[in-house]
C-alpha cells in the first residue's frame, strides 16, 4: 500500500516525547506566567498534535493532497475562532433589560445575579 512502514522505534520515540510534553504542560501550569500560561499550554498541545498527525497518523509519509485535507480543517477552525472572538471581544455589550415589562434598566431586587448582568466581569474597568 502507499504508506511506507514506520519503524516501531520511531513510534516509541514519538510516544516518549508526547509523555514528556504532558509532564511539561502540567509543570508549566503551576508557574505563574500571567496570560502566557494559556499560550504555553496551547503551544505544547499544538506540538503534540503535530507529532501525532505527522507520525501516528502517517501524514508525513502521505501525498500532498492528504496534507491539504489535513490542513484545511484547521484552517477553517482558525477562521471560526478568529472571527467569533473578534466579534465577541469588540462588541459593545449592553445589559439586557429584565423582560419586556421592564420600565427601566435598573433591575428590581431579587433578580440580581442572572448571567446577563455579569457579562462585563472579565473586562478591564
Amino acid at each position, binding site marked *: *500500500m502507499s504508506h511506507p512502514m514506520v519503524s516501531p522505534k520511531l513510534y516509541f520515540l514519538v510516544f516518549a516525547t508526547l509523555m514528556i510534553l504532558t509532564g511539561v504542560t502540567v509543570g508549566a501550569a503551576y508557574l505563574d506566567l500571567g496570560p502566557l500560561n494559556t499560550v504555553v499550554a496551547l503551544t505544547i498541545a499544538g506540538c503534540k498534535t503535530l507529532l501525532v498527525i505527522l507520525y501516528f497518523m502517517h501524514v508525513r509519509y502521505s501525498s500532498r493532497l492528504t496534507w491539504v485535507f489535513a490542513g484545511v480543517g484547521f484552517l477553517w477552525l482558525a477562521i471560526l475562532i478568529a472571527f467569533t472572538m473578534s466579534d465577541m471581544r469588540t462588541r459593545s455589550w449592553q445589559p439586557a433589560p429584565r423582560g419586556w415589562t421592564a420600565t427601566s434598566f435598573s433591575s428590581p431586587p431579587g433578580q440580581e445575579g442572572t448571567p446577563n448582568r455579569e457579562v462585563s466581569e472579565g473586562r478591564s474597568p
Partner: protein
Amino acid sequence: MSESHAALAHQFDDPQQQAEAVTLGIWAFLITEVLFFGGLFTGYAGYRANYPQAFAEASHHLDILLGGINTMVLISSSLTMALAVHAAQSGKRQALVAFLLATIFLGVVFLGIKVIEYGHKFEDHLVPGRAFTFPGPHAQQVQLFFSFYFAMTGMHALHMIIGIAILSVLVVRAWRNRFSAAYYAPVEVTGVYWHFVDIVWIFLFPLLYLIGRH
C-alpha cells in the same frame, strides 16, 4: 470483504489509488470532526474570555491527577494503535489482534476513570442543573464552565465508545485473518480516527484541568 485477497475494489485502478482514496476519505470526515469540536472550543474560548476568574475557580474542582493519568492512558493507547497498524502492515496476525485488544483495554480504562470523575462531580453537586450548588459570587459562570466540561468530555467519551466498538469489529476480522500486508485499510483508517480522538483530549486536558493552577 469476501476473501482476504480480494484487496482491490473494482472501482479503483490499482491498490495505490485505493489507499489514497481511503486516506482522503477519513481526512474529509475528520475535517467535519475538527469543526464539530471546534464549535465547542470556540464557545469555550468566548466564555472563558468573558469570565476568566470563574473558569479558573471551576477548573480547580477538576481532578488533575485523574485527568493526567487519563492523558497518559490515551497517549499509550495511541501507541498501541500505531503498533497495531504496523503489525497489520507486516501481516502479523497475532500481534495485530494483541495490539488491538491492548488499545481497547486502554480505551476502557480511560472511560472507567472518566466515570469515576463524573461520579465525583455528581457527589459535589457540580453537574449543571437543579442540584448545582457552588459557593461564592460566580456560581452561574461556574455552572457554565461545567456545562462546557460535560459537553466536551461527554462528546469526547462518545467518540471513544464508537472507537472501541469499531476496534472490536476489527479484532474479530483480524482474528478471522481478513487482513494482510496487501489489505489493511480498515485498520489504518481506524487508527487515524483513534489518533484524532487522542488529539481532542490533548487540547481538552490543559484547557479544562490546568487553568489558573499557579
